[in-house]
């Protein structure tokens, strides 16, 4: 896999949420506003990139790798938890509103399947630079997925798009023009499940269509 392919894979081909179906909990919980999605993406990408880096570094040396083999999961968890705690502390001090919105889900990055998954599946077997790229692409790819979901939920749910604190795009005018109200259902938990379900359904439909088309092409060739 070339460096470029490695960098791009997290966005579409191996998108952690949409393709690998990991990290659903925050995707449902915090996607009530675009601002939350952006904040979570920054925090998450920070953690997964650095965790990949450190775990890759540890596994570089043969002796160290063999030595920590029996306790490697525990070591990975300590690294990830430390990184998450750093994010918690910095966020609580400098970005308190975001900290309050994201709440316990910042701490839950520690047990996010994506972080531990990439550590075990990729970082422990690859060089540091590749691991960093893998972390960045997975983090940003996850962020892209979160953004799409929160865009839908916030637009349908409250008619605004909150990019950062006061920086909002107020689209309620659109609603007024059509004489309807934003549907607050989409901000609720049931709405979260529904949006994610429909988005995944659409993606699966596209995937099925592609698979069918390639099958047809193959049949025609023969």
């Amino acid at each position, binding site marked *: 896999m070339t460096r470029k392919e490695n960098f791009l894979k997290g966005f579409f081909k191996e998108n952690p949420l949409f393709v690998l179906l990991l990290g659903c909990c925050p995707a449902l*919980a*915090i996607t*009530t506003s675009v601002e939350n999605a952006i904040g979570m993406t920054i925090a998450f990408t920070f953690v997964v990139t650095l965790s990949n880096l450190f775990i890759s570094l540890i596994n570089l040396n043969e002796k160290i790798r063999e*030595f*920590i083999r*029996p*306790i490697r999961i*525990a*070591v990975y968890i*300590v*690294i990830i*938890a*430390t990184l998450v*705690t*750093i994010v*918690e*502390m*910095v966020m*609580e*001090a*400098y970005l*308190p509103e975001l*900290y*309050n*919105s*994201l*709440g*316990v*889900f*910042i*701490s839950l990055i520690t047990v996010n399947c994506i972080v531990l998954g990439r550590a075990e599946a990729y970082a422990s077997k690859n060089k540091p630079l590749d691991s960093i790229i893998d972390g960045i692409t997975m983090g940003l790819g996850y962020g892209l997925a979160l953004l799409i979901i929160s865009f839908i939920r916030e637009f349908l*749910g409250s008619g605004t798009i909150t990019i950062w604190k006061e920086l909002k795009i107020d689209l309620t005018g659109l609603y007024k023009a059509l004489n309807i109200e934003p549907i*607050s*259902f989409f*901000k*609720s*938990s*049931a709405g*979260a499940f529904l949006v994610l379900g429909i988005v995944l359904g659409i993606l699966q439909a596209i995937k099925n269509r592609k698979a069918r088309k390639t099958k047809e092409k193959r049949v025609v060739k023969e």
Partner: protein
Amino acid sequence: MKKHLITGLTLALFALICGGLLAFINMFTSPMIKAREEKKIEESISIVFDAYKSGDYTKEEFNREGVVLGYYIINNQTNEKEAVIYIIESQGYASKIRMMIGVNKDNKITGYTVISQAETKGDITAHDFNMNGKSNLDEFDSLAGSTYSSKAVKKNFSLALSYAKVDLGGNAND
């Protein structure tokens, strides 16, 4: 056996190093957080006891059973306790409601405000996600705020009034 011990100790050492790193960062972030909490308390007290803004009063923290925290509002000139402010909490139907309520010497309520659990001094607790964006369908019909049980609110008020009678004594309406 020896190998297990060594690996165990390595893990412990590693955890200690990480802990040390976090302690270092904490030295910087902790004061910022504490300062912000102090500011919030000052703001809330100004809301609950309007005259506090003028600077003619000092607050004195105290603990008592039944409240989360209490503050005496002392007149700087006379050194008398003019009012008492309680941070008080009661269990409602589906959640707790925490309020700051001020009661003056005449046993009348000077003001009140609803505060979230995160705004208590001393405890650097994370603001629980549930307090802000509850996922009950009904709330999103409202513009702001959460749903509280009226009984819990009333309980907060009646407790504040009865505690104030004891803590301030004297001129209470009997």
